């Protein structure tokens, strides 16, 4: 690099002179010695003395020559030296002037002594002005200490040579990166030591390196970052560091406001720059407005090399306040549209080279593409995260199964629902569930699903959990195709529909109950209608006689015995109506719980005996038999009501018995109950009627039994009374053979033992 114009002094003349000087005395001494030897050898004192004297004279002459020669030599040397220096300096001057690199001679105090035009060019200063200042003076503030230290060491001889890359300040105030070499040169004629300074402007190299580093930094940040939010601060800082800018700001296009707004900023640590940042944040910049607006509008890089000269810079005052002198702005392009602008600012005026513009344009495009990619990948991640969240947090069980039905994945809800860990689920519960699914679906479904056949229907099935709980599960399987559309997996949604099913079942039960109630109501309604019809029939039948015969009596013209007979008919029918009314009221009171029983000790055998006696006195066509258990204990009950029960059954038996029929009454003690039976050999009850005999007005209407008069309420009342006593009543019957009515009455507790008070 250094073409080594170190001045070498011309040594040849000095060598010639030295040889003469060194040879001359030797010749003189040799000559004198020769004379002396000749004189001694001649044997003549005089000639010897003469010769000796000659030798001495010769020696003296030689000595004088030597002294004179030396003096002459010294004077010649001095002149030579001055000439040589002059020539050397001239050569140096020519070299300095002609050199392409900056070359200068500097004193150890740093003062410029000589500078070449290249250096003036590099430093952007006039030679005469440069010669009035020092090396340190033109060095950037930051590098001054290093330069001062180097000069000191060179001065003391600690080092002979110093090389460094530093910034120096040009005359216009701009900085220029310099590769500097300082070498000690030896002393100046003035006595000062001289330093040779070589400077090379490496701004282009530095700029290109910075741009290359900047590009690398941008790409590294972009590669590592997942979002623009994450990348922006790093990226702006990296650009500043590599390209040597103090401020970097990212302005985003706000499509709603139709303005640029500052989103991210980076700046060197400085209060003034912080103020500039805050002021920038408040701004909204319209398209075409100022440097940033122009870049937004045009989509190309633009710069203000010297902000003091700019006419439309939008933050001129703020920039001046912050000592910012230069700004360059690059568009961030996304699919051809400007989505943002990055601005770089520096504290000094800068010449913006084309290579920087090209580089920044590339940066803008790459950042734009990155933002687009980041947005897409962020959306993807969000959607992935959403899906994951659905999978993880869904209350519905989700299973992913392979083509063989193997459980690949089950979400927490599934495991929780079925109370299994994944392993138990995988090995046991899931295969069971799939079998149940196929069974419930009526055919093998999973293979069909994997063949792409889906009907989208759900299947409900019953399954036990790990905890032994039975659940109703609703399973919906969906084939999941691989990217080429071939079904690869089956996704199975498993829902616990137990509650739904239970409530459905309950609803069905409730509906069934409601239907039952409706049927009962309908039946009740029919019964009511029927009741009205029957009651009115009974009353009207009775009233026919009463009304007809009383009309005859009223119209007169009757024989006295006729009147008596008709009066009897009237009385009987009136009595029948009265009984009917009584029965109905009784039944109503019993059914509504308004009738109480007055309990006393009752001897059932006695009640039966009396009933037989009464019935026997009013009929002669039926034979009575009694088979009463003499050891039957006393029961506790309402005697009058029990008499009513027995009378009713006996009267029924008589009524439905043909002439010559037999009515048999038996009593037994059975398991704490008195069992009473009244059987006849009468017409019997048809099988389809037998279950209705205790219903009100359910008189057997078909066959021979139809002709038997009655209120139709008797057996209903009987059943009520028996049940009020805590007993039961039932009937056995065969048409044509007769009927047997049985009822039980609970024995008084102390009488359960088979001992009999009265008949004991």
């Amino acid at each position, binding site marked *: 690099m250094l073409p080594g114009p170190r001045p070498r002094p011309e040594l040849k003349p000095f060598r010639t002179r030295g040889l003469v000087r060194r040879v001359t005395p030797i010749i003189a001494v040799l000559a004198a010695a020769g004379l002396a030897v000749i004189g001694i050898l001649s044997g003549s004192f005089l000639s010897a003395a003469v010769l000796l004297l000659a030798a001495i004279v010769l020696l003296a002459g030689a000595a004088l020559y030597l002294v004179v020669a030396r003096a002459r030599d010294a004077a010649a040397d001095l002149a030579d030296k001055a000439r040589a220096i002059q020539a050397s300096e001239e050569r140096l001057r020519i070299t300095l002037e002609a050199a392409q690199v900056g070359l200068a001679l500097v004193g150890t105090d740093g003062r410029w002594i000589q500078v070449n035009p290249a250096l003036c060019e590099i430093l952007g200063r006039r030679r005469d002005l440069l010669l009035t200042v020092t090396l340190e003076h033109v060095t950037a503030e930051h590098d001054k200490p290093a330069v001062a230290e180097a000069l000191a060491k060179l001065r003391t001889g600690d080092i002979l040579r110093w090389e460094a890359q530093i910034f120096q300040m040009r005359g216009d105030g701009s900085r220029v990166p310099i590769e500097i070499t300082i070498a000690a040169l030896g002393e100046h004629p003035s006595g000062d030591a001289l330093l040779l300074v070589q400077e090379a402007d490496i701004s282009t190299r530095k700029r290109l390196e910075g741009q290359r580093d900047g590009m690398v930094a941008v790409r590294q940040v972009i590669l590592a970052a997942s979002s623009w939010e994450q990348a922006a601060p790093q990226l702006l800082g990296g650009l500043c560091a590599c390209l040597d800018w103090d401020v970097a700001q990212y302005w985003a296009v706000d499509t709603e406001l139709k303005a640029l707004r500052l989103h991210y900023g980076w700046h060197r640590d400085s209060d003034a720059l912080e103020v500039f940042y805050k002021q920038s944040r408040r701004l909204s910049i319209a398209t075409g407005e100022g440097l940033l607006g122009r870049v937004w509008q045009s989509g190309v890089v633009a710069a203000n090399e010297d902000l003091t000269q700019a006419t439309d810079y939008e933050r001129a005052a703020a920039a001046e306040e912050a000592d910012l002198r230069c700004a360059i702005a690059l568009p961030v392009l996304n699919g051809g549209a400007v989505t943002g602008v990055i601005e770089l600012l520096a504290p000094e005026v800068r010449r913006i080279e084309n290579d920087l513009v090209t580089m920044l344009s590339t940066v803008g495009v790459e950042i734009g593409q990155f933002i687009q990619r980041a947005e897409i990948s962020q959306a993807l991640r969000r959607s992935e995260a959403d899906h994951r969240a659905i999978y993880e947090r869904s209350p519905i069980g989700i299973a992913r199964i392979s083509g063989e039905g193997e459980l690949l994945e089950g979400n927490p809800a599934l495991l929780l629902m079925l109370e299994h860990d994944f392993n138990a689920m995988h090995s046991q519960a899931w295969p069971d569930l799939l079998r149940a699914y196929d069974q419930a679906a009526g055919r093998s479904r999973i293979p069909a699903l994997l063949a792409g056949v889906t009907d989208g229907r759900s299947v409900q099935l019953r399954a036990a959990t790990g905890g032994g709980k039975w659940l109703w599960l609703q399973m919906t399987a969906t084939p999941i195709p691989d990217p080429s559309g071939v079904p690869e997996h089956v996704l199975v949604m498993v829902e616990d529909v137990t509650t739904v099913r239970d409530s459905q079942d309950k609803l069905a039960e409730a509906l069934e109950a409601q239907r039952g109630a409706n049927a009962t109501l309908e039946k009740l309604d029919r019964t009511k209608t029927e009741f009205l019809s029957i009651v009115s*029939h*009974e009353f*009207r039948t009775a009233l026919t*006689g*009463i009304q007809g015969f009383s009309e*005859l009596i009223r119209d007169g013209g009757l024989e006295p015995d006729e009147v008596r007979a008709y009066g009897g008919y009237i009385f009987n029918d009136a009595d029948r109506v009265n009984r009917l009314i009584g029965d109905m009221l009784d039944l109503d009171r019993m059914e509504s719980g308004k009738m109480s029983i007055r309990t006393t000790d009752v001897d059932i055998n006695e009640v039966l005996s009396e009933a037989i006696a009464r019935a026997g006195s009013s009929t002669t066509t039926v034979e009575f038999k009694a088979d009463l258990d003499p050891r039957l204990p006393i029961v506790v009950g309402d005697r009058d009501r029990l008499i009513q029960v027995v009378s009713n059954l006996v009267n029924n038996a008589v009524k439905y018995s043909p002439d010559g029929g037999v009515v048999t009454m038996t009593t037994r003690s059975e398991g704490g109950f008195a069992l009473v039976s009244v059987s006849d050999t009468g017409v019997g009850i048809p099988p389809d009627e037998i279950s209705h005999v205790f219903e009100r007005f359910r008189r057997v209407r078909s066959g021979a039994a*139809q*002709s038997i008069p009655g209120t139709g309420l008797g057996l209903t009342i009987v059943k009520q009374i028996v049940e009020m006593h805590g007993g039961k009543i039932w009937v056995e019957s065969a048409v044509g053979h007769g009927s047997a009515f049985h009822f039980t009455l609970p024995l008084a507790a102390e009488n359960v033992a088979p001992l009999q008070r009265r008949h004991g």
Partner: protein
Amino acid sequence: MGDPAAPSAAVPATVLVADDNDVAQRLCKRVLEKAGYTVLLAGDGLQAVEVALSQNPAMILMDVAMPGIDGIEAMKRIKAAKPSQPIVIASAHSMASDRERFLAAGADDVLSKPFRLADLIAIVGKLTANRGA
């Protein structure tokens, strides 16, 4: 009270009273004989059919609720053999729907129980007169 629908004395019309209730039987027999009719009695449905077909009464007064076959069934059987036989259903089933039911089953008229004696005489007179015409 006169007997506007009374048959001529020369040919006393015969009326069959079919009723299982002997009080009703007695009442009808007493009233109709007094009005100049010959009264036949039947105590159940089958007997009514037998008497109706053998005795050929001018009209029949038929109860419904009777043992054996009921009055409706008896009426159907009689009408099947003698379509022109006048039959009046006399029933204590006296709801409006009952009346329709009886007429639909073929009754020439319906007499609701209990009845006014004049109504009984009038309805019997009308049907025996129709028969005569």
